[in-house]
């Protein structure tokens, strides 16, 4: 058991290492000298050489990579070419907004998706199942930005034209500004992200639960006179948890790396918009930092999911 987890940890480190190497090489072979960007178009050859030297870009690649990776292990991801601020500080300043979007939306998508899935699975083939499935199908097909713009138009712009404000247009207010300020600015982003994601959870819950409800132990539970809700929620749902936690871990890990489209549509200054701006300004250290952070979140969430599974599945513990 511990051996398996150690192996997983090893893979996680290996994958992050590969990712760092991959992205580093990508920028190393990239056309264009970043020193030119910093020094400016009119800089003389000496200035350019000086800047190149200061950035360490004149050294061999393995030396550059080694320096990069050893610094990264100490939490130093270099400095932004543009603002000269430490990459780590830039990212840290953006994390609260992204984390607020992701975890707020998570409660909503779990709260919509799983009950809809249970409803479907308990009444398969009925009109309730059909409705839930159609909702899920539409949710899966809705591109996030289309839904976001539609919600903004109908819930912000149309009420505003009619003379009252329902929701703010976007932006991000810090939690310190008060719970209401913070929450009301995030409601539309939350629902946009949640409605699109909930569809996946509806489908997963439905499929898993339908499979499980046909099992012998469920029949046994019913035969011994357990109440139906107890059969479904205690015995049935337990078996769906493995699949749901896997999906949840993957979603959270991916989204924490930057809810790029949400931040774009709602004008929120999160990790995703930091990345977009860095790309527009060719700010390589920031791009590398954000990509590695995104990879780190994905890998870490996978590890956490593995640990949770050990807790959920007695069979895994026994191994």
């Amino acid at each position: 058991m511990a051996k398996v987890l150690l192996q997983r940890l090893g893979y996680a480190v290996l994958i992050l290492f590969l990712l760092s190497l991959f992205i580093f090489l990508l920028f190393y072979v990239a056309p264009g000298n970043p020193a030119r960007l910093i020094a400016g178009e009119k800089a003389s050859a000496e200035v350019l050489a000086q800047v190149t030297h200061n950035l360490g870009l004149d050294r061999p690649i393995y030396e550059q990579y080694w320096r990069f990776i050893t610094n990264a292990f100490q939490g130093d991801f270099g400095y932004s070419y543009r603002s000269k601020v430490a990459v780590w500080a830039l990212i840290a300043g953006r994390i609260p907004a992204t984390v607020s979007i992701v975890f707020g939306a998570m409660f909503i998508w779990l709260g919509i998706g799983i009950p809809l899935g249970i409803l479907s699975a308990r009444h398969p083939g009925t009109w309730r199942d059909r409705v839930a499935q159609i909702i899920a199908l539409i949710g899966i097909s809705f591109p996030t930005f289309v839904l976001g713009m539609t919600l903004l138009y109908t819930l912000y712009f149309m009420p505003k034209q009619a003379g009252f404000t329902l929701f703010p247009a976007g932006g991000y207010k810090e939690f310190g500004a008060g719970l209401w300020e913070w929450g009301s600015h995030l409601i539309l982003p939350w629902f946009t992200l949640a409605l699109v994601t909930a569809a996946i959870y509806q489908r997963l819950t439905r499929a898993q639960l339908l499979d499980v409800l046909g099992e012998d132990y469920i029949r046994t539970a019913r035969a011994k006179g357990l109440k139906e809700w107890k059969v479904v929620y205690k015995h049935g749902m337990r078996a769906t948890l493995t699949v749901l936690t896997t999906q949840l871990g993957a979603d959270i890990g991916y989204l924490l790396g930057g809810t790029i489209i949400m931040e774009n549509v709602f004008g929120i200054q999160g990790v995703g918009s930091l990345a977009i701006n860095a790309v527009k300004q060719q700010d390589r250290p920031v791009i590398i930092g954000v990509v590695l952070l995104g990879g780190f979140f994905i890998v870490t969430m996978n590890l956490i999911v593995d640990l949770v599974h050990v807790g959920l599945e007695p069979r895994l513990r026994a191994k």
Partner: protein
Amino acid sequence: MSEAAPTVAEAIQAPAQVVQRSSWQHLWYRLRRDKASLTALVFIALVIAFAVCAPLLETVTGHLYDAQFRDTGLTPQGLPVGPNSEFLLGADYLGRDMLVRLAYGAQVSLLVGVLAALIAACIGVTVGLLAGYFGGWVDAVLSRFTDFVMAIPFLLFALALVSVYGASFQMCLFMVVFFSWAVLGRVIRAQVRALKEREFVEASRSLGASTPSIVVKDVLPNLTEPIIVYTTQLIPSAIVFEASLSFLGLGIVPPMPSWGQMLSDASQNSMYMVAPWMLVSTGLMLLLTTLAFNILGDGVRDALDPKAGRRLLAGLRRKQKPGKEAAHG
């Protein structure tokens, strides 16, 4: 082949004979009874026709897709005009005809969606076959690589790639493919691992068949159904992926219109608030096309994989057939 295959005439004269149907025949036979899938297919056919007719629309309206009609397409205040007799779906912020652009955008969406899904399927099947059949270090390397691709935050990585090499059609296609094949690779690998232990593979091997022959002639034909199912399901996600990239300015490069890019135009300076037709027509088109492909994908899955599909009755069936073998390894 010791016995002669029945001729066509013999086959017709003996209607009671059991006919072996290919996966495709099965698919069509079941799909045409499914109203939702048929509707989706008709809609997709219409979108294809719309895309093919793009140059025709250009000729009929006299509006080139990137021509800016600053006099007729924009109001005196410089705002786009809404749907009228000249611009059936209205104009965009530069006074370009939305209808013509929508048709050209359909070409891009369909092309990227289908092409990316096909290429990704080829890569996924190849990787899955190699990893599953050969096992050992081949499997270790390919599986770690698959894990690696799945651990890349793909939109962020797309940002990085575009910042280095610039956006282009090829780059967009490459990114969609690169981040789409991994799931199929895993599925195929698992299936191949189960298949290669089966008797018919052993029989081929004992008859002296070479490894490439076993892989291509014995294993691959048994994978037709998952390949069809997953490839169909890859199309809508590829379409949304392309639209998202173009929306962020990382995908299709102007002046070539794509739906994502048109929606990005609509969101610039919140233009869609004063010109909602820029959002409605394109957004609806994108939503309905993805929806149609998703419905078709579900239909194909239900038709080819009755276990996954007819879950409606799964509970009942299971009680009747307790000894049913699992369809997937």
